[in-house]
């Protein structure tokens, strides 16, 4: 029976019920929905398909193969863990948005055709917008609207690419595309969601503004859904190898300058997604399995890191390194569980990051890509420097700010403990747990003496550097300009000259959105970006359709 029930269905149904049920029943439904989705995905054998024709279009809303299945499993898993973590937050809209986002991520991983992919893609963008706005501050509201602007633009590129591809005889089934006109538009859309520089700044702008639980879901879905899409459509594209290595290093360099703990972790999403994009670009079976394995690991350990940082924010109300310190005694469990995630992302043996990161680096080594291999190893040094040393030192140790954190809800600690246990399980027994889920058979053995020794040396060598430079690594009361500075001011300049009609329509939309978010409807600058997003989307679609018309008219 389960092959006819899409795993996204329980999440969407759960979201609808959570929207109307009282608090206690809401918690039960919110937990049961992703757990049911996980059971459904787990029970779906590779090869399952649901096909139908709608308005003359052949659609495949459900296609299960090994690549989609591994992503779907971890999306559902994180959905359940994230809901458990967020149970202490009673806001209805958080749980509704989280379940819709989980369902949309599942929908992307299991989409068989382009149009189904597009629908889920945009659904995820809207759900993520609500998760960011759920941060509950005017700053969060503005970041959410900027997020929407970028992702509406990316979604318009995706739709234009799909329409162009289909109108020129392309297959309805989602599969590899060449990097021609439609392929380039689709790649641009995927690059936006994957946060590939220079279209990366939305991530570190938006994620830290969400609530502690909202950020856990955000950290898991959008970028990894894009990695899945890249692996499905652009495996072996050389440009992705260099984009991936650039991302891996870009994130760790920017993280040095960060003061906001969740923004720092956001830069490490960019860096870690770089490993996955590199694996997709390498395109060998080992590399693609490595990319999928690293996405799987990353969703778990990054979820754990965001849970740890979110718990600190929840308990102290503070989010900056310059305001934190000395929390280890007051929050020992949070500190220990955070460190499990930190060692995992840093590639410490017995944790899942060690296995999956090694798969990608080994795939580069197998192809004799020496610069790629060393670039990723250098990024690993930076990862441990920030997430394993700088952030925990200045948060849990370091100068004692005499903070009195509020008690941490048991559900938060339970979710963190379960996630940490999964990091250890998948890291200690990869052949029995992780490898069977991967898209290609993997015989790689990470636990050889030289490899374990190498991993420990990276940790020790980095620690020497940290101790030596510790005085220079404390937080500074600054923010970092990212690539958004290249387009924010010009976009604002253009948008302000588009006329009162657009501004009026955007004002109405803004007022509606802010009313939905329970915000005061008087935030001056957000109308322009929304109007601009709509205009930009229409323009991109128009250009694509014009290009299509020209292409068809020519002999």
């Amino acid at each position, binding site marked *: 029976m389960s092959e006819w029930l899409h795993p996204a269905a329980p999440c969407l149904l759960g979201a609808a019920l959570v929207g109307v049920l009282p608090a206690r029943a809401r918690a039960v439904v919110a937990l049961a929905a992703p757990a049911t989705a996980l059971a459904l995905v787990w029970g779906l054998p590779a090869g399952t398909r649901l096909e139908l024709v709608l308005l003359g279009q052949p659609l495949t809303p459900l296609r299960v193969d090994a690549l989609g299945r591994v992503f779907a499993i971890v999306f559902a898993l994180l959905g359940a863990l994230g809901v458990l973590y967020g149970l202490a937050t009673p806001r209805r809209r958080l749980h509704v948005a989280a379940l819709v986002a989980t369902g949309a991520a599942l929908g992307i991983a299991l989409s068989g055709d382009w149009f189904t992919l597009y629908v889920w893609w945009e659904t995820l963008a809207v759900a993520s917008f609500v998760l960011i706005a759920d941060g509950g501050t005017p700053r969060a509201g503005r970041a959410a609207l900027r997020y929407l602007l970028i992702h509406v633009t990316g979604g318009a590129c995706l739709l234009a690419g799909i329409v162009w591809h289909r109108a020129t005889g392309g297959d309805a089934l989602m599969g590899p595309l060449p990097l021609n006109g439609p392929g380039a538009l689709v790649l641009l859309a995927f690059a936006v969601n994957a946060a590939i520089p220079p279209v990366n700044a939305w991530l570190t702008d938006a994620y830290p503004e969400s609530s502690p639980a909202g950020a856990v879901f955000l950290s898991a879905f959008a970028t990894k859904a894009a990695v899945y899409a890249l692996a499905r459509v652009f495996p072996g594209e050389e440009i992705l190898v260099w984009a991936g290595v650039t991302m891996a290093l870009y994130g760790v360099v920017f993280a040095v300058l960060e003061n906001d703990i969740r923004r720092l972790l956001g830069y490490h999403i960019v860096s870690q997604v770089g490993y996955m994009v590199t694996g997709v670009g390498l395109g060998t079976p080992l590399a693609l399995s490595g990319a999928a394995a690293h996405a799987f690991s990353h969703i778990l350990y990054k979820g754990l890191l965001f849970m740890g940082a979110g718990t600190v924010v929840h308990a102290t109300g503070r989010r900056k390194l310059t305001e934190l310190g000395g929390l280890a005694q007051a929050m020992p469990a949070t500190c220990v569980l955070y460190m499990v995630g930190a060692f995992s992302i840093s590639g410490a043996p017995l944790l899942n990051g060690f296995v999956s990161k090694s798969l990608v680096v080994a795939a580069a080594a197998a192809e004799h890509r020496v610069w790629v291999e060393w670039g990723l190893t250098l990024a690993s040094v930076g990862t441990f420097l920030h997430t394993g040393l700088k952030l925990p030192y200045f948060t849990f140790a370091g100068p004692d700010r005499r903070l009195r954190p509020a008690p941490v809800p048991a559900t938060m600690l339970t979710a963190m403990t379960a996630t940490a246990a999964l990091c250890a399980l998948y890291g200690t027994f990869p052949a029995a747990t992780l490898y069977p889920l991967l898209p290609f058979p993997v015989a790689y053995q990470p636990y050889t003496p030289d490899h374990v020794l190498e991993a420990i040396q990276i940790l020790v060598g980095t620690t020497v550097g940290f101790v030596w430079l510790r005085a220079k690594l404390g937080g500074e009361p600054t923010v970092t*300009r990212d690539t958004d500075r290249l387009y924010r001011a010009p976009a604002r300049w253009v948008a302000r000259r588009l006329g009162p009609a657009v501004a009026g329509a955007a004002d109405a939309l803004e007022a509606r959105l802010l009313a939905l978010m329970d915000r005061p409807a008087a935030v001056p600058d957000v109308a322009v970006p929304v109007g601009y997003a709509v205009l930009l989307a229409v323009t991109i679609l128009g250009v694509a359709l014009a290009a299509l018309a020209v292409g068809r008219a020519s002999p």
Partner: protein
Amino acid sequence: MRREIGALIALAALLTALEFWLWPAPAHVPPGVTAPFAFVGCVAIVVVAKALGNRWLQEPEDRDE
């Protein structure tokens, strides 16, 4: 700080010695390279980031969004 660094360097030296003596032919990295690479890489990341930050990237927290 000196004692901490001294202990860590001793540990790194021990690991390097193990690499040389117990596993003389590692899979793809020459012995004695990894720990110094991590140290130099760590310093390089900090120096490059701080230089970029001071010169171009950092601005006060109360910037206009």
